[in-house]
């Protein structure tokens, strides 16, 4: 499947999303009036400082916020279906199958007590009617798709036996095996070193073009955004301050905060031609 044109169908639509947290002094807003749409096969980058509400936005899409301490209002529409207000069991069926999540720290995302294979098969069989044998086959295929060598051996290993970069790719295999429509990647490369970062980003890009999956990419690194995103939303203090197409945003930032963010990039010396300049010549 190839990515469709910018006017393609909207997979995920978020509008008027407000999250407040209940404190002793009353309700404290965390994010207010967030709205964006995710189109098929496109990557939407959500960028901002730490504490700007990026992760809360992604947790509220998955309905993972604690309802006893937080209050969520607004509409989250996945392929024409309203998610806000669904029952727990119904949301559970959507999580992992239609919306998948990749977390920042792969070491904490797996249970240390079970092998990769056990956890993989559990995920597959929760959402499908496949037999154990079929599930193993699907798991092996998915692991091979993310370029992991020796998939069979890998299934028997425990999470602590793998490196961070490998685990992150296993997590992507988990997320992608059921071909979800939306993939939420919350700082997917922050804890990885540079070579692994490149591999994981290439993999995400391939998933996006091959399966037409829409990716909501959350990052504070403008380098990652510049490499991956098609559209960008900039968040500050729980609000989206600017939304634009990626080249437009880097060339003509409108909001003061966006300009500040772009200025905060570490430049490799002025006398030294940076990588982008070298490519431009």
């Amino acid at each position, binding site marked *: 499947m190839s990515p469709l044109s910018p006017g393609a169908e909207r997979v995920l639509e978020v509008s008027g999303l407000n999250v407040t947290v209940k404190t002793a002094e009353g309700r404290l807003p965390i994010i207010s009036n967030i709205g964006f749409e995710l189109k098929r096969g496109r990557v939407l980058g959500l960028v901002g400082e730490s504490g700007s509400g990026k992760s809360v936005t992604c947790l509220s899409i998955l309905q993972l916020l604690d309802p006893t301490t937080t209050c969520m209002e607004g509409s989250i529409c996945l392929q024409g279906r309203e998610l806000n207000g669904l029952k727990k069991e119904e949301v559970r069926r959507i999580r992992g199958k239609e919306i998948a999540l990749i977390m920042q720290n792969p070491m904490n995302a797996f249970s240390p007590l079970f092998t990769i294979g056990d956890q993989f098969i559990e995920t597959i069989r929760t959402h499908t009617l496949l037999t154990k044998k079929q599930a193993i086959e699907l798991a092996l295929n998915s692991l091979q798709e993310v370029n992991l060598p020796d998939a069979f051996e890998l299934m028997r290993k425990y999470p602590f036996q793998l490196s961070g970069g490998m685990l992150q790719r296993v997590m992507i295999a988990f997320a992608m095996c059921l071909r979800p429509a939306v993939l939420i990647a919350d700082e997917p490369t922050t804890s990885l070193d*540079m070579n692994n970062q490149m591999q994981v980003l290439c993999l995400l890009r391939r998933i996006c073009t091959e399966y037409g999956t829409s990716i909501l990419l959350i990052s504070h690194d403008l380098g990652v955004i510049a490499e991956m995103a098609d559209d960008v939303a900039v968040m500050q203090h729980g609000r989206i301050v600017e939304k634009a197409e990626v080249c437009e945003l880097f060339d003509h930032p409108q909001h003061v905060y966006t300009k500040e963010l772009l200025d905060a990039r570490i430049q490799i010396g002025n006398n030294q031609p940076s990588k982008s300049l070298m490519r431009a010549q």
Partner: protein
Amino acid sequence: MGLLLVENITHSYNPSHLFFKNKQSAAVLSDITLSIEEGQCLGLLGTSGAGKSTLGKVILGLEKPQKGQVIFQGIDLYDADKSTRRSIRRDLQVVFQDCYSSVNPRMNAEQIIGEPLQNYETLSLKEHYRTIGELLETVGLKADDRHKYPHQFSGGQLQRINIARAIALKPKLIVLDEAVSSLDMVNQTKILCLLNELKSSFGLSYLFITHDIKAAYSVSDTLAVMEKGEVAVLCEDKSQFFQLEHPSVRKMVESVLSEHPRYRSIPK
């Protein structure tokens, strides 16, 4: 004579665990020789697992190497007696990656920064109070922040407190082990600027351990690349670094993310 001289360091972890007796010991560092001059910054690059942090620990005197010497200001760190080592410690400070776990959550900022002062200096109460206020202002915080506890600070602010603690005794060398890696871009840039300012105003030397080539480039004078426990490349003049032909350097330069979406290295 350099400030710090690391000579032929070889180190490995011996798995003395019950279940892993038969396993061979894993060499982490092999035959490492480096030096840092006064007022200079050495950027130590490498992928994860290359042995960067172990070398940092060896230099700090936390991990005795099996072979080799660490000579700091002309004194062998692992050969010195207790009182000499104590005085060396004063000039050798460290800032770790995880700012939250490197401070005691039950101490407030004043106690955190005041601890090294109490250990090494005999200041009157008034001077102690004034020094801490000055240190907080040096790293860009307010003197009134002294009563706050770690959980009341953001990651970037807490990293500044860690830096304030490290410079409290006016040390000669600070080992920065991934000190900016866990921070977001805005805070990273702010901390890197602060480090550069401190370097020129106090004449500090740094050992800057990181996997981020851009961060290393912006503070270091010399760059070294570690690979599988060895120093693969040592580049005295950092402006030459990007022209080097060594495969590990090329791989590193190639995985630098582009600054503008027009020059993407990941094709669509």
